[in-house]
């Protein structure tokens, strides 16, 4: 039913929505907000259809490939964008969030392998918990990053005593600080859950005598690094009062984003077995199409979590 939907369909919709958001900087228009929401909403529908189609046709665990992971993360980020755009129609959230959405889709299309994992029923639940929690942690880090950028932009404007720009109206510092601190807490909790579920998955593999993921794997190490950074940021904010200052929280979220990029880069560029890969040369990369049963060559029956 949704076989005709490709990543180009929803990328184009999000691209048009981003162009419309950019046009806020150039001119004023009455119906632009509704049209922007329309394009982003249409993109979300196509995006959902694409993921649904992948989930139905994929061999192994649904939406378990690295490519799907990026696409699901971008899907959640679009939902967050639409939510914020409806609540705050005068704030150009799309200018900040949609490039991240397109970046995630681009990474999924051109860099991330598309082989799904075939998990044993016992580890499927833990695999789902692991995947979902890491996706939510990712979205929290990205939202925190955007809120941090907006916060620093707003502070700069206020410190320079400039009136608010009509075409680039940012949320209040109070709202941005609240969003920042919640984003850090949520990303820490979700990443903690992701790490924990990953450990459980690895133990299940050990029990089942399946291939385990090494604790030295680059993805595992970078995930731990991000988790400890976030945990330290949360503890610092709770214990040391000056760390609650808005701009310090904003810097923490920006730094968290850098750690997050490091984690993604480790997964994409370094030799990791996290996504069930053995040799990177065999991966189905950059084709933009869903793998078929013939394409599917599982490297091991169990998942390889961090």
């Amino acid at each position, binding site marked *: 039913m949704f076989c005709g939907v490709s990543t180009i369909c929803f990328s184009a919709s999000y691209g048009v929505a981003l162009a419309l958001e950019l046009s806020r900087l150039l001119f004023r228009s009455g119906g632009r907000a509704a049209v922007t929401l329309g394009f982003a909403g249409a993109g979300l529908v196509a995006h959902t259809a694409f993921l649904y189609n992948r989930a139905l046709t994929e061999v192994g665990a649904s939406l378990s490939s690295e490519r799907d992971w990026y696409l699901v993360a971008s899907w959640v980020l679009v939902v967050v964008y639409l939510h914020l755009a409806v609540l705050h129609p005068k704030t150009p959230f799309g200018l900040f969030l949609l490039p991240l959405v397109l970046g995630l889709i681009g990474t999924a299309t051109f860099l991330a392998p598309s082989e799904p994992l075939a998990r044993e029923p016992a580890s499927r639940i833990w695999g789902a918990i692991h995947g979902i929690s890491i996706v939510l942690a990712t979205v929290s880090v990205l939202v925190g990053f955007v809120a941090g950028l907006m916060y620093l932009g707003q502070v700069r404007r206020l410190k320079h005593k400039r009136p608010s720009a009509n075409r680039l109206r940012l949320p*209040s510092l109070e709202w941005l600080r609240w969003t920042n601190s919640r984003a850090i807490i949520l990303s820490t909790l979700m990443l903690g859950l992701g790490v924990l579920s990953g450990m459980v998955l690895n133990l299940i593999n050990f029990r089942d005598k399946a291939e385990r993921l090494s604790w030295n794997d680059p993805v595992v190490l970078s995930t731990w690094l991000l988790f400890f950074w976030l945990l330290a940021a949360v503890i610092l904010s709770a214990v040391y009062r000056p760390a609650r200052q808005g701009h310090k929280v904003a810097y923490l979220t920006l730094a968290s984003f850098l750690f997050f990029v490091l984690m993604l880069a480790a997964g994409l560029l370094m030799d990791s077995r996290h996504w069930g890969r053995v040799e990177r040369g065999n991966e189905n990369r950059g084709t933009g199409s869903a793998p078929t049963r013939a394409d599917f060559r599982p490297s091991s029956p169990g998942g390889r979590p961090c």
Partner: protein
Amino acid sequence: MLMQVVGCSHHGTSLAMRERLTFTPEQTREALDHWRRVFPGVEAVLLSTCNRVEIYAATERESTPTLDQIGKFLARFHGLAPAEVVEHLYQHNDEAAVQHLFSVAASLDSMVLGEPQILAQVKQAYQVATEQDNTGPLMHAVFQAALRVARRVASETNLHQRRVSVPSVAVADFARQIFERFDDKETLVIGAGEMAEETLRYLQEEGARRITVVNRNFPRAEELAGRWRGRALAWENLLPALTAADLVISTTGAEGAIVTADQFAAVASGRSARPLLILDLAVPRDFDPVIGDRPDVYLYSIDDLQEACQRNRSERDKELPAATHIIEQETARFMAEMYHRTIGPVIERLRLGWQKPKEEELQRLLNKLPQVDDHARDEIRRSFDRLVNKLLHPPLESLRDESRDGVPRGLLDALARLFQLKD
């Protein structure tokens, strides 16, 4: 249609004179009653604000009251000498009057360009005139168009987006950009200047509830606190009150800073790095400017706010050409509609005048051709209709063309005489 506006405004009339000519709401009703008796059959709306007094008059008749007559009307109502009043009055007629009303309603003619109150005042003036039975089809058409045009200018330009008074800029451009809500914020007012009261008014509109007033004169502080449903504190409590505050409005008449950087350092240690907005509206300044260098302190002096106002005014001025273009476009459209409305009855009479002989001739022909079936009868009828339409097309087209730039009185007279059109 004959429409005119006669009045005076801030452009050429002193405040002293405007004050003498202004109308209270009760006086407006009284004046409109009086107008109906003096100028029966002439529709009128009386717009009286602190910056203008204008009478809009319109009638379908041959003439409207003259400037002198309206001047005398105003002078008599206020007990002034007519000559004294008439010299201050201006007059715009027909298209110029419509354009003037559109400009006034859209706030292009206001003392502060883009100020939002004028639209409500125009609406109010129109409502009062309607309630007093001083309006008719012409005033309904022109005032409803004016309200629509003003809304169009507001939605299609940024004319009304920027605040231009110090208190409104302080709240809209700065306070609201720092705080999401005000009902849980502590507002501290130091001193009791007029500007502080005005700023407090805007803050209360935003939801500010917790207000503390500190003044060297404690009874004065109590008075202001009572007015704003806040609490008054003695001057000695200034620094503790600063520690608790989220937003400070300072307008004392002190000769130097009342809060130094050192004093504020002690205050800051008790604030847990909470953001603090300080609106220092005093001259000389009440707060040492160095305090503004602290990361969580946003300190704005009166100069900073006035500079922001000036920037906003410049931004509004940039919108003026676009707004003026809308006004001109809408005026032209409105006048074309009005002119078209004027020629409408003539067109109708012309059509009716040709309809009767056509029907008679058609009937005569059909009576002579009894063998013709229904289909042929319809064809003949359609043919007659087409003939009449084709014959009427050139004069009607000429009439429409001529009516784009005004009522084509000469052509209307010629048509009336040529085709013997009667009312």
